[in-house]
């Protein structure tokens, strides 16, 4: 089931929609009110977030490419969840994500940030998102994943 997540613009202080499970959620203040990031020390939530969100973007904190992906998806009318990864958590998160992916085709290998998951599956990075959008295939995929309603 895919939730419609409230977009952070109207809620300057984080909290609500994104926190899942045991809230050892260290919610770091984000410089950018437009960016609904949730930093979590407990990385096992990663798997749950991937399965519970229509679209989720994993990216390093402050990464501008992650910002690009987010702006693109926002521009299309999608409410992407963004998981900002701290440097110290990076290895752990990548491991966790690799385990998530390994369930499907292992062709993707270790994911690189920013990593976009759609409908519970790894979609790809910024390049793939761009290419798919230019070829006109992104919107149908987003609809199929439940991230967009016509």
């Amino acid at each position, binding site marked *: 089931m895919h939730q419609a997540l409230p977009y952070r613009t109207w809620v300057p202080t984080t909290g609500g929609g994104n926190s899942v499970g045991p809230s050892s959620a260290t919610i770091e203040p984000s410089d950018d009110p437009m960016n609904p990031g949730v930093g979590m020390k407990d990385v096992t939530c990663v798997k749950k977030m991937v399965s519970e969100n229509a679209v989720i973007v994993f990216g390093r904190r402050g990464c501008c490419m992650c910002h690009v992906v987010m702006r693109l998806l926002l521009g299309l009318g999608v409410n992407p969840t963004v998981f900002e990864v701290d440097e110290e958590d990076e290895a752990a998160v990548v491991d966790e994500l690799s385990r998530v992916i390994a369930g499907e085709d292992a062709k993707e290998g270790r994911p690189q940030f920013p990593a976009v998951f759609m409908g519970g599956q790894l979609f790809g990075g910024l390049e793939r998102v761009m290419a798919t959008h*230019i070829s006109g295939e992104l919107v149908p995929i987003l609809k199929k994943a439940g991230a967009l309603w016509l």
Partner: protein
Amino acid sequence: MNSSSTHFVTSRRIGIYEPLHQISTWGESFKTNGCPNTSASTIAELEAKLDNQSEDTSHGTPGPSEKYDQEATKPVDKVQRRLAQNREAARKSRLRKKAYVQELESSRVKLMQLEQELERARQQGLYIGGGLDAGHLGFSGAVNSGIAAFEMEYGHWVEEQSSQICELRTALHAHISDVELRILVETAMNHYFNLFRMKATAAKADVFYMMSGMWKTSAERFFLWIGGFRPSELLKVLVPQLDPLTDQQILDVCNLRQSCQQAEDALTQGMEKLQQILAEAVAAGQLGEGSYIPQLATALEKLEAVVSFVNQADHLRQETLQQMARILTVRQAARGLLALGEYFQRLRALSSLWATRPREPA
């Protein structure tokens, strides 16, 4: 000008050497100004001419002085002679100065021509650094080998592009088969993909060079967006050239333009965020303390991200080209590539015209 002291002596003999000394002074100062060949020979010629004249004068003077052997007229004679020699010296000095100024003028014209030539050559990517261009602040002396290689490759790329455009033009007029036309289209497309590969390599060498579009001509740079043209803008230029399009094609092209625009906007916003991050990193701490190495170290790390932007922008350009090729028929694609190629040629020509436009002398 060297003001070596000239000795003004009343003696007739030494008086002869006085104007010669002045001539050599003019010559010396002019030679040090660094205009080698013609000027030196001109001066030598002029010197020889004036030497002959002064010798004539000196030969002339003994004559009349013989007549005035009486004591009473001797001082008058000397005064007259000195005045004559002074007039002579002044005249020669004026002639020397005139020659000197003429040399300066012609050198100035030559310098302006050289500057223009360099500008033209630089626009074609044949000159490394472009030190005379006002856009290059400071040293172009440190030649980046990666960039030097790129500029050279780009020069060849433009030449190859020109010949491909000619081929496309001929092929379209000759109504060759679609199969043969497809080969030309593929070649032209791959040529652009090669450029993106070249740019990616050069971006690792100097990303700011790529971001500023330094290899491009001035008119092309006017349209710069993250190291190249905006794909959506190029589509606007191209589409009217492709008539007639089917309804489906019109729809597809419309969607492509919109997707391009959205992707461009996302990249632009990402760039703005990077600028903000960079500005914050540079300005961290107290501005004005005079020590800022740690801030710059942080900022340096952030700059790596600029390379990604150049790559992503080129990736977008490549994807747009490929999508257009999918939408269009082979013949339309050929026309489109021809139109695109000539559009760039026109912009380059415009840059040349602008660089060589008649200007008021400085």
